[in-house]
């Protein structure tokens, strides 16, 4: 169990805190993802857990023991870095057992753990190669093996897949996830990629500017976002957030929100359809600026109510519409999200 209690980080006394009060408990065996845009502080939190960065305020507990002032090696965890951090002068095997050797683990154990780890990451045939002779994916697997071999039951991963190409990244996602399941270890995984967060995480913490926006399962984050930041972060294309009813009436589109008439309304692009399905479906008059047919769907780009910001909708199949004119699209009422003007969710309709 890893507990962060009101964790704060500031670099100098005068500076504003980069991490402002993070509290979360991560249960053993959990795949916990920290996600957010760059500069949101997710890597800093990870490095504070690892002990590579000092903690300015709050408590860090691992299995009930206070970790704040312990050196990294005493926290019994291991870490995988974005750039792999393999020792270039050592072979794959040497890289993997270097830590064990330095800690004077006996040779038989070293060998046993090495061969287990090599099998697990499927690198047995590469054990005597040097990192420079391996591909990016193989290097990252060596880094994984090194983490596994340490015997730590917590592995921290700092954007481990972002140096890989798209295809490899996808397959590595499943490999890492499967490995974690098999070993029953706790993984804290940092990424800026919402798809990685959604597909890998048991639970996801989303951060912005050092502030936790929401913690929950991927499904909760997608279906019940607590604010517009979360709502816009998950899902591609991202959710349209449009000012509510009063602003809309001129064009004959009105949303009778159950809330303040000034509420913001969120519509996921794929919630739109061209035909009215229910009587009370919301009809939106969209100035269709352009459209793109992408095979399974059609993407519509346009504006509502002469507003500046572009909205985007996704229609199943090939939509029989023509651009540069007003078209009407429909959204069923249970697919609408409501936020107050500060961006906080008002209630959760449609779950």
């Amino acid at each position, binding site marked *: 169990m890893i507990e962060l209690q009101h964790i704060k980080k500031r670099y100098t006394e005068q500076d504003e805190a980069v991490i402002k009060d993070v509290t979360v408990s991560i249960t053993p065996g959990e795949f916990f993802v920290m996600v957010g845009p760059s500069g949101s502080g997710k890597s800093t939190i990870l490095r504070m857990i*690892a*002990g*590579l960065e000092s903690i300015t305020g709050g408590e860090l507990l691992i299995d009930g023991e206070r970790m704040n002032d312990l*050196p*990294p*090696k005493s*926290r019994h*965890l*291991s*870490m995988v*870095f974005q*750039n792999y*951090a393999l*020792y*270039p*002068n*050592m072979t794959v095997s040497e890289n993997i057992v*270097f*830590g064990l*050797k*330095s*800690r004077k683990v006996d040779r038989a154990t070293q060998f046993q753990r090495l061969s287990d780890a090599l099998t697990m990451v499927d690198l047995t045939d590469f054990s005597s190669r040097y990192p*420079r002779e391996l591909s990016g994916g193989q290097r990252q697997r060596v880094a994984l093996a*090194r983490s596994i071999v*340490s015997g730590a039951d917590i592995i921290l991963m700092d954007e481990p897949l972002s140096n890989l190409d798209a295809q490899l990244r996808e397959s590595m996602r499943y490999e890492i996830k499967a490995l974690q399941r098999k070993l029953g270890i706790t993984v804290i995984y940092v990424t800026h990629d919402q798809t990685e967060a959604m597909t890998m995480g048991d639970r996801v913490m989303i951060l912005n500017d050092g502030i936790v926006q929401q913690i929950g399962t991927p499904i909760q984050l997608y279906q019940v976002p607590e604010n517009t930041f979360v709502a816009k972060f998950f899902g591609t294309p991202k959710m349209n957030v449009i000012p509510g009813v009063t602003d809309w009436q001129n064009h004959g589109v009105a949303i009778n929100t159950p809330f303040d008439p000034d509420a913001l309304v969120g519509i996921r692009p794929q919630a739109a359809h061209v035909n009215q399905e229910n009587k009370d479906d919301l009809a939106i008059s969209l100035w269709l600026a352009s459209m793109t047919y992408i095979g399974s769907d059609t993407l519509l780009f346009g504006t509502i109510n002469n507003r500046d910001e572009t909205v985007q909708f996704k229609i199943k199949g090939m939509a029989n519409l023509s651009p540069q004119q007003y078209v009407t699209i429909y959204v069923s009422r249970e697919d609408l999200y409501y936020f107050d003007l500060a961006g906080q969710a008002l209630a959760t309709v449609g779950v």
Partner: protein
Amino acid sequence: MDHAFSSANHAVVKHTQLQQKLKTHLAAMGFIAPSAIFLGVFVFYPLVKTVYYSMFLTNALGQPVKFIGLSNYGTLLQDKFFMKSLLTTFIFVFMVTLLTTVSALALAMVTSKHLKGTTLFRTFFASTMGVSVSVASVLWLFIFQPTTGVSDMVLNLLHLPPIHWLTDNTWSLFAVILTVVWMNLGFSFLALTGALENVATPLYEVADIEGVTTWHKFYHITLPQISPTLFFVGTVTMINAFQTFGQVDLLTKGGPNNSTNLIVYQIYKDAFVNLNVGKASTESIVLALLIALVTIAQFKLTEKRVMYQ
């Protein structure tokens, strides 16, 4: 007719091709000329001339008088005086290379910690690069000065007997070594600082997390990563040490009792004091060969341990 025309045409083409080739060659020569002339006049011509002189008996004006083949070399190898100078040089070079590399690395490691005042100390340590040999020698002369020198003052404060750095057989070579190491330190320090800065931080972070000991971190991460620079610094220092002249000339004049009579100083004395240019030339050639040999040996011995990325 058609055939004749094409053959004539062919000849023309060939001619212009030749012209073109000549032009490129001329251009290439033009580009090489400045450095070729410079090297020719200041390096290759003196080298050839030295080899030439080394096979002659010369008169007091330095003119070759009688061709004697390789017998200058034979005489030299039986010359106890020269052999002692050679031995002194080897001890000197070994010590200078070792001490310079080790202390430069130590200083670079200390200042790579990014503590307060690091920049100031870095500037101090690198500053010997800007000091000339003569100035440095005079400075050390003041330090080594009996009774009034800083060294004796410090020793006196510690209630230790004074050391006759430059006049005592046992200390003189060490004193010269000390000044030369001090001189070389700036450059080596700077090069090694750069190398240390280039070692990727995550390598140490992984090691920290895995509980790797400080010694293992140094031996298995730092050393291999900076080995190319270390090798470079070692080689350059060694070659420089072989050619040390200024410090000896200004501090000890090769004495006392020839204890600091390094080979280059011996060459200087033979050529300009004893006016035996033939012998001096022979010694120069032997020195050049020795430097080449030792450098090759160093390459062969240590290159395997150097890791180029």
